[in-house]
C-alpha cells in the first residue's frame, strides 16, 4: 500500500492503494468515475479506454503504480460541456444501442483525431479495430469519426 497522487480530468487526487491496482478500478471504485467501463479486465475489448498523457490506454491493464505524473483523461473529462465534435457526431448519427462500449470507443476516437485530424477509412479501421461493440454499431462509429473530423476542419481552418 502506498499513497499515489493522480491528476484526473485536471483535478489532483490522492489514492491509497496497492501499486498493482488497475487504473480502471481506481477510477471506478475510488473516484466514482464510472463512465470508464469494465468489459474484460484483460485489455481485449477497449471498453475501459482512457487517455494517459494524451495517449489512449486500456485502464484495466494500466497499473496505478505506472501512472506517475502523466495526466489521466476519462470520458467525464473529454469535454465537460458535451461539446466535443465526437459527442455531437455520436448523437447525430444515433450511434449507441445499449451503449456500454461507447465511452471507450469515443475516447479511442478522440485520441485518433488528435493524432490524425482527417483519418481515412483505413486509418479508422486501424485505430478502432480492437474496440469491441457487441451491438455492431461499427459503421456508425466510422461515420461519426468522419463527421467529427469534418466539423473539426470546419471550425479550425
Amino acid at each position, binding site marked *: *500500500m502506498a499513497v499515489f497522487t493522480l491528476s484526473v480530468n485536471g483535478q489532483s487526487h490522492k489514492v491509497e492503494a*496497492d501499486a498493482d*491496482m*488497475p487504473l480502471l*478500478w481506481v477510477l*471506478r*471504485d*475510488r473516484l*466514482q*468515475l*464510472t*463512465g*470508464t*467501463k*469494465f*468489459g*474484460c*479486465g*484483460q485489455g*481485449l*475489448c477497449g*471498453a475501459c479506454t482512457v487517455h494517459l498523457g494524451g495517449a489512449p490506454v486500456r485502464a484495466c491493464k494500466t497499473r496505478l503504480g505506472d501512472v506517475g505524473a502523466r495526466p489521466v483523461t*476519462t*470520458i*467525464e473529462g473529454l469535454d465537460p460541456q*458535451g461539446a466535443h465534435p465526437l*459527442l455531437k457526431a*455520436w*448523437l447525430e448519427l*444515433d*450511434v*449507441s*444501442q*445499449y*451503449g*456500454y*462500449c*461507447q*465511452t471507450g470507443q*469515443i475516447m479511442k476516437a478522440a485520441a485518433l483525431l488528435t493524432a490524425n485530424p482527417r483519418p481515412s477509412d483505413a486509418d*479508422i*479501421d486501424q485505430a*478502432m*479495430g*480492437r*474496440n*469491441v*461493440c*457487441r*451491438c*455492431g*454499431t*461499427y*459503421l*456508425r*462509429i*466510422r461515420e461519426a469519426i468522419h463527421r467529427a473530423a469534418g466539423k473539426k476542419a470546419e471550425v479550425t481552418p
Partner: protein
Amino acid sequence: MTTTRRDFLKTMGSLSLAFYMPLNVKAAPGTAPGTTPGAAFEPNALLRIDGDGTITVWATRTEIGQGVRTSMAMAIAEELEADWSRVKVLQASTAPKFGDLGITGGSQTTRSTTEAMRKVGAQAREMLLQAAADTWGVPKIECEARSSRVQHAASGRSLAYGELVGKAATLTPPANPPMKAPKDFRLLGTDVRRLDGPDLVTGRARFATDLHLPGMLVASIERCPVFGGKVKSFDAREALKVSGVKQVLQVSSGVAVFAEDTWAAFAGRQKLKVQWDEGPAAKVDSATIRKQFEARLATPGKVVRQEGDAGQALAKAARRIKVTYDAPFLAHATMEPMVAVADVRPDRCQIWAPTQAPGLALPAIEQLTGLKADRIEIQVTLAGGGFGRRAMADFVLDAVECSKAVGAPVKVQWTRPDDFQHDGYRPATLHELEGAVDDQGHPLAWRHRFVGPSIAAANHFPWPPEATELAGAADLAYDIPNLHVEWGQCDTSVPVWFWRAVPASFNPFVTECFLDELAHAAGKDPLDFRLDHLPKAPRKLGRDTFDPARYRAVLELAAARAEWRTRKLPKGWGRGIAAHAYLDCGTYVAQVAEVEVKAGGAIRVHRVVCAVDCGLVLNPGNVKAQMEGGIAYGLSAALYGDIAVKDGHVTAANFLDQPILLLPAMPKVDVHLVASDLPPGGVGEPGLPPLAPAVGNAVFAASGKRLRSLPLLPPGLRRA
C-alpha cells in the same frame, strides 16, 4: 408448434399491462425528483406531467439496446400530442403500481405494448382537452391538442399542458379514448434518436455495474468450472489476507469473496483454494456431445410438420441429396458482464439489476429472503447488453443471497471468464436433410431431422420440449409437396437458454442453405428457385399465418437493391440470398450477402443488402440500427462463434478464445424498408436469421464449396 416464447410472455402477464393497471394511482413520494407534490398530473402510473411542462414516462420493458425506452415513450407521446423535447423516460420497477413488467424478449415489446402505451397517452390527452374546455367554458370538441398545448381556434386561446395539470388531475380517465389513425401520426414513423443517447456518450448513464451504495461490499464468486459441480471444501486464509477483503462465504453458486471494492474482491478470489466435487459432467466434452447427437439422429424424433409422403417421394426420386449440417453452442457475451446489486434487510429487499425478466426472478427471491413479493422491489437498470441472457435469474439471485449473507448491500460482479463460462448457451444442434428435385427442376421432397437440447425442458418451462427449438425449420416457407420435419430431444449437461433469435439463429442457416443446394441440383438461380416455390396464398404455419406476398416482397426488394441479376462481382466473390419470416413477431427479412473467399478459406463479407417488412414502421432509424446490429451479431456467430466444452467446462474464457466481430470485418450494410400499414412488428431479432445462410450461400457461389458447419471459418482462421 403449439407453443412459443410468445406464450411465455403472455403467461407472465405482459399483455395485461396498462389496461389492468389501476388508474389515478398516486405516485410514491419522491419518484420524480425535483417536482412539487400536487403540481402534477398523473393519469396513470406510467405517465406524469408536471406544472413546468415536463413529461415523464416510465418504461416497463428493459432497455437492452433495442430502443424500447424511446419507442415506448414515442407511443405515449404520439397520442398525448406531446412536445417531444419535453419528454423524459424513467424505468418502471416491480413496485405494484407499475403492474407486471413481463419479459423483455422475443422481439415482442412493439407488438405487446404499443397499443397499451398509445392508450395511456390518449387518455391523458382527452383529460387535458377536457380541462381546457372546462376552463374556457367551450365544448371539448372545439379544442385541439398539439405539441403540449391545447388550442381553441375559435377564440385564439391556448393553454400549455403544464397550466392544465391541476384541473386535469381532478378528472376521471376515459375508458375508451379515441386513438389516432396512423396517417395522422406526427412522431411515430419518423427518425427519432434514442432518449438515452446523451447520457450514454458522456458516461453519465448508470448501468448496474456503476452503482455504489453506502456501506456496499463487492463480491466475486468462484464457481465450479464444471457444470453442476459443487464445493467440496475451501481454504480462505490467503484470500482473507488480501487488503480490502472482508469475508469469504460459501453460497449456492460457489464461494463468494466480499471486499471493499471490486479489485480487492477479484484479488482475494485469486488467492482462494477450492476443492470441487465436479460431478458426472466432468466427463463431457464437445466430442462426446457430438456422439450423443449422432446416436440420437439415428433414431426417430417427434414429427413436427408433415405434408405428403417424403419417404416415398425420396425413394422414387432420381436426383436427391442427403447431407448433415451442424451448429455449435454459443455464448451471449454482453459487453457488461453479469452484475446486480441487492440490499436485503430483515423487512424488505431492494435490488438493482439489468434484468430482462424481473418477474421470473421474484419467486426465487421470495424463497431466498423469506420476504413476500410486496416487500421486494427490483429496480431495472440499463443493461450493457441483453440478447436474452439477462432473462436468466442467476445473477440477480447471486446478489440477493450475498447481501442476505453479510447483512449489507452487495454488488456481485462477474468477470469476463465467469460470463463466458457460466452462461446459458444457445443450443447446439445436428441436422440431417434429404431432398429431391424432379426432372423439371421443381422440389419434390424435403426431409429434415434434427436433434439438440430443449431450452423449454432444461429450464422446466410448462411447454412441450420442442416449443423453443422449431422456428426456421417447422415453419419452412416453401411449397414442397412432400415435406417431413422431425425434431429429437437430446439434452446435455451444458445449460441452454434464449439467445438472439433462439432457434432462428440456427435453423434458417440449415434450411436456407439446403434450399440453395436443391436450387443448384435443379440448375436454377437461387432467387428464382425461392420465388417459384412459394405458396400461392397465405397459410397457417403453427398458429401463425405465413404471408408469401410479404416474403416475396422482401426477397425481391433485397435482390433488386443488390442488383442480383446484373451487378458483376470481382473475381473470387460470390453473392448469396436468404430470407426468414419471423412469424412470432410479425417481421419478414431477406438479405443478400456479397462475399469474397480467399485462399485457405478466409471469408470477407463485403456488403449485406437487407430488406425488412416489419409492418408499420414506428422509428425507421431504429429499425435500420437493429438490422445492422442483427447482421453484426449474426456475422460474429457465423464466422467465429463456437463454445467448445472440455472435461465438463467451457474452454473459452475471453475475447481471444471466443472472438467477437470487430470494425475492420464489418460489412457495408444497406437496409431497405418495405412500406406497410400492417400492425408494427419486432425488429430486435429478425435481422439475424438470414445472415448466416446468405453468407454460406455466397461462399458457395464464390468458391463452389458448400459449408454445412457453423462457424464458417476454419479453426485456424477464427481470429477477429
